[in-house]
């Protein structure tokens, strides 16, 4: 092992505070500024910095939990999930999974974290030009059944079982926050329109149809999915109006027939 690698491993072990190390013997002593105090500056700064990073990635979770609880959540996460990314933007990517696992009796905490993370993914998802609604008129009646759609990279569907989105909304708008609660299974949509992340709930028919086309299904298979909820004669109109809504919301980037 190179002496530099060895030194850096000792320093890092002290900063992470995980195991005792002999790093202090590598640091010059000074009567007024002892080595232990010098090292502690780095250790404390590390914790503060990563707490801040997590707070900036999860501002509403922090508001919900309060400073003290949030710091406890953050510390537990920091101790078990050191960062491996160049940017603190990605620190906390597994927080929702960790919280769902560690706080099963309060599932809204894990779901609030999941929600906030997905909103942040929509915020800086890849830029793509979206399809002008008028362009669909260019396809012939024969082409329509085989049409496939490419959605904007920010589009994401998810299922939640708590009122986490309502908590998120109230927290981010500074309104009174309702009590957290279980709900029946709800389908949600997150995407970005212009530069702003947006979200709304989906009724089961829209969620079913959207999942089909998100999964590269054709317009025809989307219609088949809608038959589960609508009489056959209403399906084409329902399908067309959903497409129109998604286009207007800038969710679709392209359409193509084979």
């Amino acid at each position, binding site marked *: 092992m190179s002496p530099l690698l060895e030194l*850096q491993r000792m320093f*890092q072990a002290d900063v992470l505070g995980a195991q005792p190390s002999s790093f202090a013997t590598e640091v010059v002593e000074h009567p007024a500024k002892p080595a232990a105090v010098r090292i502690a500056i780095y250790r404390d700064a*590390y914790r503060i910095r990563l707490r801040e990073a997590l707070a900036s990635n999860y501002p509403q979770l922090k508001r919900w939990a309060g400073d003290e609880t949030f710091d406890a959540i953050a510390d537990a996460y920091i101790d078990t999930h*050191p960062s491996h990314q160049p940017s603190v933007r990605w620190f906390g990517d597994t927080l929702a999974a960790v919280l769902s696992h560690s706080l099963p009796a309060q599932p809204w905490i894990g779901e609030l974290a999941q929600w906030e993370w997905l909103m942040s993914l929509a915020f800086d998802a890849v830029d793509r030009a979206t399809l002008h609604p008028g362009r669909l008129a260019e396809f012939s009646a024969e082409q329509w059944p085989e049409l496939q759609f490419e959605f904007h990279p920010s589009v994401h569907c998810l299922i939640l079982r708590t009122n986490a989105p309502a908590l998120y909304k109230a927290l981010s708008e500074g309104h009174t926050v309702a009590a957290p609660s279980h709900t029946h299974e709800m389908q949600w949509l997150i995407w970005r329109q212009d530069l702003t992340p947006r979200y709304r709930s989906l009724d089961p028919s829209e969620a079913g149809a959207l999942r089909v086309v998100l999964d590269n299904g054709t317009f025809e298979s989307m219609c088949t999915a809608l038959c589960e909820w609508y009489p056959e004669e209403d399906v084409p109109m329902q399908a067309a109006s959903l497409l129109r809504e998604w286009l207007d919301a800038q969710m679709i980037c392209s359409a193509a027939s084979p």
Partner: protein
Amino acid sequence: MLFPHLGFGLGVRPEHYEALLGERLGCVSWLEALTENYLVPGGRPLHYLERLRAHYPIVLHGVSLSIGGSDPLNLEYLKQVRTLAERCKPAWISDHLCWTGVDGVNLHDLLPLPYTEATVRHVVSRIDEVQHRLGRRLVLENVSSYLTYAQSDMSEWEFLTEIAERADCLLLLDINNVYVSSINHDFDPKSYLRHIPVQRVQQFHLAGHRDCGTFLIDTHDEPVCEAVWELYSFALGRFGPVSTMIERDGNIPGVEVLLEELQRAREIEREIRAA
């Protein structure tokens, strides 16, 4: 051999995007953008960077290169920086003379290196590779530090100079960091500056710190202090006009507050030039 002189700038923060593009358009000569904040797939950060660069020269300032680290250079990161640079055409790219973690961990801190010949050689060879991969010379910043390694056998300024000369890279002198370290390690900040080769200095940083009694901590959440202004004036006397900007990362005030601080930097330069 230096990149073009840009004058007086600011570290751009999202809080100031709208002001810099709106009522304060053109208020500074250039902007320094934090590289990592723009290594994202898309959305608002890259949108604003694109708009800002239409009005201001941009400099990229990174924190995760870990030029003094022991892990292999992160080539994926370097590729992303290069792609970002192709997109925003920075006047130059800077990072810090430090290491940030080992064994794949990023501590997100700018950690000091032991000042030894072996470290100089290690860092110089890594700078060579980075300069090759980025296709340009690198600008490296001195960091604030809170400890000295027993194995160090040269001063920080000798270390910095040795690396800059041998790797043929440029320096970003953070005047506040020189001052902070001078108090933490009991050296004379002016003699530090006197040892740095004039023709290597591309940029100055000014920032605030926190006084914690026996130590000063580099926090970037306060205005520039009097002692740092005085050291800045000394630095201008030695290095001549150098592109200067103010860094503020915490307690971020309205842009007008930072512009007032920058105005003071301009006035100091004017005085030095007149003298």
